[in-house]
């Protein structure tokens, strides 16, 4: 999460205990009325049917729920939705543009950097966050950058191979 959060434009409604917020997700604004205690993961999945972010542990241990908040990979299970107005949220559904796979997605397919696929949206977004701030990571930087996303199928070597290939392609 960024250090300086803007003042929340949230509007509490005492009668329903709901708060009205506007979230900008994948460049689209959504006006929502939600209970303040709900996580970004819950709101994405339950209110917006954006089910690409996965509930794997709901305690910030596994990374399956990773989304980008202002370009940084965050665990959406640890972020309250009411923290997010004013920020840019990107989910896996927002990575594909006009039916075209993002190069990271395409490379994951080519390199078979997945098995069951449950952690894959999180892996793809974690790698995007890494490559956006460090276009040419070393192997060690790749492993450290991806260490917050567990892959129980153990596709790690192929994820790393995909990351290396992407780093080579970057200018």
């Amino acid at each position, binding site marked *: 999460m960024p250090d300086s959060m803007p003042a929340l434009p949230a509007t509490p409604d005492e009668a329903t205990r709901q708060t009205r917020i506007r979230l900008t997700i994948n460049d689209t604004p959504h006006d929502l009325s939600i209970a303040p205690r709900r996580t970004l993961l819950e709101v994405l999945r339950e209110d917006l049917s954006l089910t690409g972010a996965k509930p794997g542990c709901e305690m910030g241990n596994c990374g399956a729920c990773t989304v980008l908040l202002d370009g940084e990979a965050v665990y959406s299970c640890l972020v309250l939705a009411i923290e997010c107005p004013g920020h840019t949220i990107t989910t896996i559904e927002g990575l594909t543009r006009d039916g075209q796979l993002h190069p990271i997605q395409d490379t994951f397919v080519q390199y*078979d950097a997945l*098995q069951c696929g449950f952690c894959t949206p999180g892996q793809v977004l974690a790698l995007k966050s890494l490559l956006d701030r460090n276009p040419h990571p070393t192997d060690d930087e790749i492993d450290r950058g991806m260490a917050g996303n567990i892959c129980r199928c*153990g596709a790690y070597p192929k994820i790393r191979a995909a990351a290396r290939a992407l780093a080579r392609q970057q200018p």
Partner: protein
Amino acid sequence: MSTPKTHLIGASLPRPDALGKVTGAARYPADLIRPGMLHLQLVFAQRPHARIVALDTSAAEGAPGVAAVLTAKDVPYNAHGLIDADQPALCGDVVRFEGDKVALVVAESKEQAEAAAKLVAVTYEDLPAVTDARAALAAGAPLVHAELGTNLLLHIPIRKGDTARAFAEAAVVLEGAFSTSWQEHAFLQPEAGIAYVDEQERVVIETAGQWLHEDRRQIAAMLQLPEEQVIVRYAAIGGAFGGREDLSMQHLLALAAWKLRRPVAMQWKREESMIAHHKRHPFDIRCRWGATREGRITAVEAEVIADGGAYASTSVEVTKVATLFASGCYEIPNISVDGYAVYTNNVPCGAFRGFGAPQAQFAAEIMVTRLAHALGMDPVELRRRNIYREGSLEPTQQPLPEGVSALPVLERCVEEARARLRYGEPRESDVPSAPHLRRGIGIACGIKNVGYSFGYQEQSTAKVHLYGKAELERAVVLIGAADVGQGAHLILRQIAAETLGIALEQVSMVTDDSGEAPNAGSASASRMTLMGGRAVHDAALAARAKWSAAEEYEAEAEVQFHPPATTPLDPMSGAGRPNYCYGYAAQAVEVEVNTLTGQVRVLRVISVHDVGRAINMQQVEGQIEGCLAQAVGYALLEDFQVRDGHVLTPYFSTYLLPTALDMPPEIVPVVLELADPNGPYGARGVAEMPLVPFAPAVAAAIHDATGVWLSQQPMTPERVLAALSAMNGQSTAG
């Protein structure tokens, strides 16, 4: 089988389901939950052993949004299980482990279901719990299933030759005691699903699993419905590793949908999954090995005890596999092994990748290396002299199934280890700048059966429809085979396309509906490529022959493939033909031990496997690498702790899984293709084998680096440090 020139066999084609997985479009069970569905919340026992004195659901029933609270009295036939039906869906009288279920709350929302579950009032009378497998066998131990009169679920002896005489004549006799712990599957997708009753009065369950038709069998039995009235469908499956072989919630979804006639949904939290589903068995193994001066291993005696937990699951089969492999992959003339599966009030144990083989061979492979050291012989040379060859007799006194590749696999491993790790060369100081970092190399072998064993009526069924005019235009393959991430659907499709001589795109697959696709058997025991693949292959050939012969534009054929029969083990001697196929593996591992912290880093792994024939080389490598990730966890990291029947590690914050940083920087998968006589294009299985030699290879490497032997899995820093300080204490004292 003939292996003609092929265009698709071995090709590293990308998996078609990858597109949905990288875009987030793939729908896993929890993604199927829709507004308007009723939500289910279980009430767990949370105590290891107790009698239910009273169960009051009235407060929960009156809570906001609650549609029903189901208990044991609502279950038509309240017992299920893969082999023995000994586990209640909802407990009525006694709870036997903390993840036992006593009530199922059905409410309009998840929050309401959770709130109401807290209002279910259960009065328990705690009973003495038995939470140690050896203690459970003692006279007077508390009984987990009182009606059985014993906690012993299975005792299987294997007797071959005359061990007493062999030990008397052996030049070297060594004893060992080993223990292995539970392992949690930790598939990243926690159990979830939906169920409803359709317009044809069928109860439909959409979830994840490993075997559509077995789930259906158990659910139909519980609801006392004909199997055809139960439809099991699999969504995208978020990993399984054996952990979805037992029913977890599938039957409870069905029960609630059937009782309430409304769509229902359930999604377990991680801690519910950790506490409630079965685990890999902990084993306690005591053994004695004897060899001649010339390096012939002549005798093995072992006692192999598995803690099966509160319900039978597949403990009997896992224990038989461990008993069979207690002497590893070596032809030893005199064997006396006793395997025991025991009920306790711990979490039930069942299938997990390797299915008893990793535990047994942790002990066996360490003993072989220790024997070599005692004989002053290279550990590879001792293995070479004793390892299984074509025609070798198993401990069960029958020749091994044809296609024994243990020796070529070992030789290739040694060759690679010499070239890549400089195995066998004298080592200079390990890390000159850091004397507390010590490096070592270990080698171990492994064997694991492919497919079901011990007389099980093993089968796989596939149906192929063909359409075309002058040319074959397209094929539809129907086979109820679970793709748990291993890539089975692509493998089966490649086999079909190859066999029919058409492009992959001309073949479509129907795989995930028990009402449409025939029974492939489970996605387990490394069997789907061999069994499902062979059924698809044979059905494709049969359909093709009909299509060629007929004037019609359509043809179809269904084939049920049976591999060579196996037999049950003789209850007195263990004699019999246990398996129809084995996978052979050998690994060389280089580790770095930090002697100050006890931490072990795996630097390099060479993992050699005979896969018969790689259908998709990229996926074979993926299986080897992925299995090694779980092997790293099993050997070094994953410490599932249970005290007095309570799981102390129900979160990923306390049960640590390997991340990218725990992976060996260099993994070299080496694939040999020595055709299996029954597999399609010669293929056999590979999914479990890398887990078998890894932990003992790491133990040997730690010994090579430091001189200490670890005998408990996982080899955590605490245990490594304790072993080092014990050795140092001894050498100081001595």
